[in-house]
Each structure stands twice: as structure tokens, then as C-alpha cells.
């Protein structure tokens, strides 16, 4: 999308809205493709029948219990991670920030593991609590000292915190064989093996998180201009920050609870989106939602196809794509 001065604002809005529409259609296509492709190929007609004229045959069962939940999960988790990343980047004014890099996802994961260890099952509340506590700690560590919140301190504190929380998780898993058996699969960051019954309880949280993120677009755009400017324009920056942080915790916690720690989606997608639509968070957030869902859906489909009939954990796919991008950003954005 070009933003030449001759182009009136309303017209560019039309283009951007059109882009969202097209993006949704592509997303729908990917959703269908991810249902069709896999260890057993299924033709589109069968999918239609399985959804609307279910007859209990093997193909129909595969679609309803395996493929469909997984495809939906990929889109949900991708959207949640990407939006959480976009908000984090806006909030901290830091191109390298994302919930997974700052340790928020690791905090949610540790809380889940602790909950499984103590009470035998991890509920969603623990993931939120873990994410919230970690977010608070990393924000405090990153903003201490005279220079305030600098991108570098934030990232380095986040990396150390991630290592610490990861080691604690490993330690617990080694000590408790039973916990390990329960959640080993989940911990690798995988979308496999979830059915709709597991997804539904989390759905409202993700929906609320995504919806309220859209309301924060204008405020985040202002905040990205710098706190002084934002306050001068009449923004209650403290409240916006708290609200935005709450949305991040909600989204990152839900995503981790559903699919385990999947890295680098929250870092990469907002940058790709910003490249296309500019710096306005009112557009960045919906596009990030679409692009995140699209990316994780494609990554998951690819992870299933590359070495059929085995499959790669999707967390590995996203890291292999995302880590070089992180290095590129560190090289180009950090000059000092």
C-alpha cells in the first residue's frame, strides 16, 4: 500500500479494508487446505459432507476430530500470538519485543507445569497468572535505572528470565516423571492432539483479548509517538498501558495454555504487517490477527507435509523461520 500525499486518507482506508477482506478469504483458503492435506489426503467434497452431513465414516471422523480442531487452533493461536507481539512492540516501543522473547510465554509454561505438578491438572488461570507475574518482573527489570525502559535492557532481562524459567521447568519435569508424561507433548509447542472440547473453554478469552485489542489501536498509535507526545494529545497513558498489558497477558496466556510455547510468531508477524500497512495500529492489529493466523496455519500444514507421515513440531518450524529474522532485526535496528 503506498501512502503518497495525493492519496486521500479515506481512499487508503478503502484499500486497507479491501486488503483485510482479501486476507480473510486467503485465510479461509488456508484453513480449508490445512484440513485437506495431511497424512491422509481428503477431497474437498468429503470435507463439506463431514461438516454438514456427518455419516461416521473414517474420513469424516478424521475431519471432525483431528483436522478441523487443529486448523482452528492454528488460526486462533497464531492470531493471539501475533496480536500480543504487536501490542508488546507498541507498548515498549521496541522492535525486538515479543511475549516469547521477554519470557512471558516461559512464565505461563512454568505456571502450567507447576499446576500439573501440584494438583494434577493445569487450568487456564495458572497460565494467566504466570504470564502476568513474568510480564511485571520483566517490565520492572527492563525499566530500572536512570535511563528508564530501554529496548536492550528489556531484551536481555527477558532472555535471562526465559533461561531461568526454562531451567526451573526442566528441573520440575526431571523430578516428577508423572508430570513429564502428562505434558511433554504440550511443552514442545505443538498443535497436535487437541480436540474441540479443549479449545472451547479458552475461546472466550482469546475472543475478548482480540476484540479489546482492536479498541486499543488508536491509543497505541499515539503511545508509539512517545509518552510525552501522547500525554500532550490527551492520552491517559498509564491506563492504556495497563489495559494493553492485560490484553497481552490474556492472549499470550491463552495461546500458551492451548499450544505450549510457540516462538517467534509474535516477533515476526507485526514487522511483516507494518511493512505493508505502515505505523497505524488501528490497521496493524487486525492485519496482524489475519497474518498470524495465516502464518501458523501454513507453518503447521508445512510441518505435517515436509516429512510425511511423520510431522515436525510447529514450534521448530516457526523458530527456524523467526530466529534469522530476529538476528536481521538486531543487526539493522540496533546501531549503537
Amino acid at each position, binding site marked *: 500500500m503506498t501512502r503518497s500525499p495525493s492519496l486521500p486518507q479515506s481512499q487508503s482506508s478503502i484499500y486497507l479494508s479491501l486488503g483485510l477482506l482479501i486476507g480473510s478469504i486467503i485465510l479461509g483458503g488456508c484453513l480449508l487446505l490445512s484440513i485437506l492435506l495431511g497424512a491422509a489426503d481428503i477431497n474437498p467434497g468429503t470435507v463439506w459432507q463431514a461438516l454438514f452431513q456427518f455419516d461416521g465414516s473414517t474420513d469424516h471422523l478424521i475431519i471432525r476430530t483431528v483436522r478441523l480442531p487443529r486448523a482452528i487452533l492454528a488460526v486462533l493461536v497464531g492470531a493471539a500470538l501475533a496480536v500480543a507481539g504487536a501490542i508488546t512492540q507498541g507498548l515498549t516501543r521496541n522492535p*525486538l519485543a515479543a511475549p516469547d*522473547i521477554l519470557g512471558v510465554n516461559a512464565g505461563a509454561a512454568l505456571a502450567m507445569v507447576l499446576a500439573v505438578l501440584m494438583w494434577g491438572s493445569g487450568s487456564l488461570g495458572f497460565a494467566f497468572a504466570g504470564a502476568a507475574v513474568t510480564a511485571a518482573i520483566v517490565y520492572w*527489570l527492563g525499566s*530500572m*535505572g*536512570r*535511563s528508564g525502559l530501554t529496548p*536492550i*535492557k528489556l*531484551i*536481555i*532481562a527477558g*532472555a*535471562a*528470565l526465559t*533461561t*531461568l524459567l*526454562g*531451567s*526451573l521447568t*526442566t*528441573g520440575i519435569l*526431571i*523430578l516428577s516423571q508423572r508430570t513429564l508424561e502428562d505434558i511433554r507433548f504440550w511443552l*514442545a509447542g505443538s498443535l497436535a492432539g487437541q480436540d474441540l472440547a479443549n479449545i472451547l473453554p479458552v475461546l472466550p478469552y482469546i475472543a475478548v483479548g482480540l476484540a479489546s485489542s482492536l479498541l486499543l489501536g488508536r491509543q497505541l498509535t499515539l503511545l508509539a509517538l512517545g509518552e510525552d507526545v501522547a500525554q500532550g494529545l490527551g492520552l491517559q497513558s498509564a491506563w492504556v498501558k495497563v489495559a494493553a498489558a492485560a490484553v497481552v497477558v490474556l492472549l499470550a496466556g491463552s495461546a500458551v495454555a492451548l499450544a505450549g510455547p510457540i*516462538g*517467534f510468531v509474535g516477533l515476526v508477524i507485526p514487522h511483516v504487517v507494518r511493512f505493508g500497512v505502515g505505523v497505524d495500529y488501528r490497521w496493524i492489529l487486525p492485519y496482524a490477527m489475519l497474518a498470524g493466523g495465516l502464518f501458523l496455519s501454513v507453518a503447521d500444514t508445512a510441518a505435517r507435509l515436509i*516429512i510425511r507421515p*511423520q510431522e*515436525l*513440531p510447529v*514450534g*521448530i518450524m516457526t*523458530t*527456524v523461520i*523467526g*530466529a*534469522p529474522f*530476529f*538476528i536481521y532485526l*538486531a*543487526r539493522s535496528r*540496533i*546501531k*549503537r
Partner: protein
Amino acid sequence: MGIVLGALIFNISLGEYPVPPLEVAKTIFGLPANPDYAFVINTLRLPRALVALLVGMGLAVAGTISQAIARNPLAAPSILGINSGASLVAVVFLITFPDLPIAWLPVAAFLGAFGVALCLYWLAWNQGSSPVRLILIGIGLTALAGAFTSLMVTFGNIYDVSQALVWLTGSVYGRSWEHLWPLLPWLAIFLPLSLVLARDLDTLNLGDNLAQGLGSRVERIRSILLLCTVALAGASVATAGTIGFVGLMAPHLARQLVGPSHAGLIPVAALTGACIVELADLAGRLLFAPIELPCGVITAVIGAPYFLGLLYRNRNQ
């Protein structure tokens, strides 16, 4: 020195089958002692404790040198991704060539560490790289190497993988003489070499221009020192897996003990590192006995807060 020896002896004496420390000392030094203990000490505990000792030394000295080269107190091999690179190639080696003798493992790990060091140099060095870029790129490389390692673990033969996993967690569990001997020559060559170069490290620390003015051939010295770091870190990782934060903590503690001059710093850091790994191994065995925590977990649980503390202390710079 005395503390290290004490830690070594306690590490040998305590465990599921306790042996009195005095008997341990007697057995090690060949004095007449109760022969019942000889088996436990000589074949089970002693090699393990010695491996912990050497690995601690290697990691600590590697950390000291890399902190001096990068002129950055936070630049330890584990944070820069050098250890992850070593473990990636070592896992590839374990899974692709399970039949080759274990003595080749340090060589493989060395190549991995070297590869990551080259990448770092190439990506981050820009006429005396900025410390921050170096660390950020190190974090990225760590993530990348970690992802490929999990990839190998996912697809290897299940038997080789379980072997690689034990090794990956950063533990001296089950290390025997067979693991000790391949490690020894690497340390025997590169520890003295880094001691010899200690003076050059001091001059390098003053800045490239000043070091050149003082007659130091900066580029050449720096590449030799880099080689030392990579070799020491690689060989240690090959033997005990990724035991994190030792290379970060040991030099700092040593600097508080003897000051910044590298001639004193390197040996003290080596001993401190040996102590840390030895005690971490001991703690890992005793805390939740009979289950063992790998000492890599212990060092990370202690080391990460230490790292954050360093960050806190430097908060105004």
C-alpha cells in the same frame, strides 16, 4: 585451591552410599585405606568429580577470555550461543555416527562452537562490535541452534536420542574415565596457552588503538584467544553438555577476589568455575535424592538471577 580440593572430596564422599571424607582423601592419594570404598571411589565417584572439575575450569576460562575480547562483562559463551552451537553439532554427531568412538565428540563440538563464533564475528563485528549487538545476535543464534537440536532429537533413532538427551541436559551423570581422557588434552593445551596470553588480554582490554600502540599485534592475538575460548568451551560442552552461566559467574567472582589483571584472574576463575560445577553437581545429587537434578539446571537457577543482578548493578551505565 584448598577449597576446590575440599569440594572435590566432599563431592566424592557424599551420596547414596556415604564414604567418610578422610577415607576419600586417603584413597585418592594412595595411602592405605579401607578397600571396601576403593571401588565406589575409583570407578564411580572420582572420574565424575574430576570431569566436573575440568569442565568447570574450561567453561570458566572460556568465559573469562570471551568477556575480555568482547570487552563486555555479560559476554559468556553460553549467552553468545557458542555452547548451543557446540551441542548442536555434537548431537548431530551422536545421532548420525553413533558408532564412532567418543573421543571424536570434542572435535565435533569444537567445530560447532567454531562455526557459531565465526557467524557471530561475521554478523556482529563492526570495527569493534557493539556489546549489545553481540549479545542480541548471540540470543538469536542460541534460539536457532536450539531449534535444530530439537529437530535432530525428534528424528533420530530412539536409542541414540535418549543418549543424546541425557547428555544435552548438562550433567556429569555417569561420566567415567572414558569421558575424562578425551577432555584432558584439550585443557592441557589451551589452559596454559591462555595463561601465557594473559598479558595480551590485559592490553586488549585497554582498547584496540592503545593495544596497538603498546606493540600488540591485535588481530593475531585476538584470533588465537578466540580459538582458545572456542576450544575450551567446545571440549567442555562435548563432555558434560550445556552447563550454563559458569562462564559468566566464575570470572566475576574471581574479579572480586583478585582484581582485573588476567595473569591472576585466569587461574582463580578456573578454580572458581571448578568449585561451582563441583558444588552444583553435589547439590543436584543431594537436594532431591534419590532423584538427581542435572547440574546444568542448578547452575542456571543460580546463574540467571546472578546475571539479572549484574544487569541491575550496571543499570545506570
